[in-house]
């Protein structure tokens, strides 16, 4: 299938109009569970970015030999392989980064966003476009996680990137998983409101 979108458009689509967390509402479990600090969000985002790009490219390359009946197992297998490879390589050659990212990398196998992008995009489109789409979606996820992490870290522990900025802890509640839902929900509403406002001001429907 031909794709009429440029690489830049594919990237911005992943970050803005089809942001995995705020628009597609996928992979909410990690968004709620792990995004307690900006750094956690960033680490998980980087890991997802790599797995998403590698898996998208792999599936796109082999799309013609994948039997349509067994495409989902194949996706899972691909993702699991890349997660394992990244996990092993990180543990072996970047032990410092692995000490911080290790627990996140293993979680990625079950992420809905990656399987969904393979199903919706990579299995139909050329390799080049799949690469850009994967990059855009990964970046969108990373930015989303960091934004949520920013709010929760600031309100929950009064810090940003681990540096104490407020000097006190405003609301311990924001660290807890349940607060993740509130933050995600409020931000979703906020971004939708901006979009509606923007479209109205431009006279679009």
């Amino acid at each position, binding site marked *: 299938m031909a794709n009429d979108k440029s690489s830049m458009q594919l990237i911005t689509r992943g970050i803005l109009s089809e942001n995995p967390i705020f628009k597609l509402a996928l992979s909410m479990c990690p968004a709620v569970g792990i995004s307690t600090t900006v750094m956690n969000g960033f680490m998980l985002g980087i890991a997802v970015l790599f797995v998403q790009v590698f898996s998208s490219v792999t599936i796109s390359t082999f799309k013609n030999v994948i039997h349509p009946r067994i495409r989902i197992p194949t996706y899972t297998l691909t993702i699991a*392989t890349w997660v394992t490879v990244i996990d092993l390589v990180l543990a072996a050659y970047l032990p410092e980064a692995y000490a911080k990212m290790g627990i996140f990398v293993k979680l990625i196998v079950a992420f809905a966003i990656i399987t969904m992008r393979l199903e919706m995009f990579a299995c139909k489109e050329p390799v080049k476009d799949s690469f850009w789409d994967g990059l855009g979606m990964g970046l969108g996820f990373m930015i989303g996680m960091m934004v949520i992490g920013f709010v929760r870290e600031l309100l929950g522990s009064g810090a940003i990137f681990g540096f104490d900025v407020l000097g006190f802890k405003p609301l311990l509640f924001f660290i807890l998983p349940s607060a993740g839902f509130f933050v995600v929900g409020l931000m979703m509403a906020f971004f939708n409101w901006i979009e509606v406002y923007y479209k109205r001001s431009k006279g679009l429907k």
Partner: protein
Amino acid sequence: MKNIITIVIRLTVSCLLAASIMGLCFIFTSNAKKHNEHVQEQRVIYDLLGYKNGAKIPDSLALHEVYRYVISGGDRQSIGYLVPQGHGKGFFFVNIDLNGGLLASKTVALGDTEALDPKTRDKAIEQAAGPGYTVKFADQTIVVTNNGKRIAYLLGGKFQGFKTFVNVMLAVDPEFTILGLAVLEHEEDPGLGAEIVQDYFKNQFKGKAFEALKTIEVVKAPIPTEYLEALNGRVSEEASGKLREQYKDKAIYALTGATISSKAVAEGVKGIVTKFAYRLNVLDKILQEQQLAVSF
């Protein structure tokens, strides 16, 4: 039917492909990974002993690993220790019953690197324990000596935290006063229980005397500002030593919103040290009675 066969074949091929990629990756990275784990462990050990950030480690300092095994079989249960005779000289195997009486002691010819590998070590212990007994690795302790004099013990241990297990390493001096606590692995809640890894919590254990530790308690109160600064390492070594002396018999200040995690760590540390103190007394007595020339 044809469909099924193609599906089976394709799925098998993709599984084999994935497996070989993962296998190759594992083969290429396993050595580097093991090396990293070893380096990390060494770093934790020297950090606990006070040689932080690559400070020079004196040559007279030596680490001696003592392995503890639970040996069961027939109608009895006993504790077996693998005690080093010195580098490259092999080990003693000391089998002690639950009342502290000696059952058997013999020499075990095992190289230093062989002892590090759990597989060969388990096998050697099995042979030493004799037929009909099953052996199970319990824990390992590192005795640190400086010029042949014992200066510290490093104790590994695991205990129940708020959610799952907390894996720690402790350094205690020969009087069982705590020299330091390192949290190796845990799954406590970020921002709450996970704060156990922070200096201002774990450094509270530093300097706690054995007698105080036996009855240690956790209080829900804010840490006094002066003490907090010292725990975070923001004051000079001299001043923090003075404060440590002042607080050495005091209770542990609980983490805000994580009293259970704080209590779990305090209880866990207490358990590890008191059990170790008892076991070491038993082992030392036996070693002395039998005139076994161990390396520490």
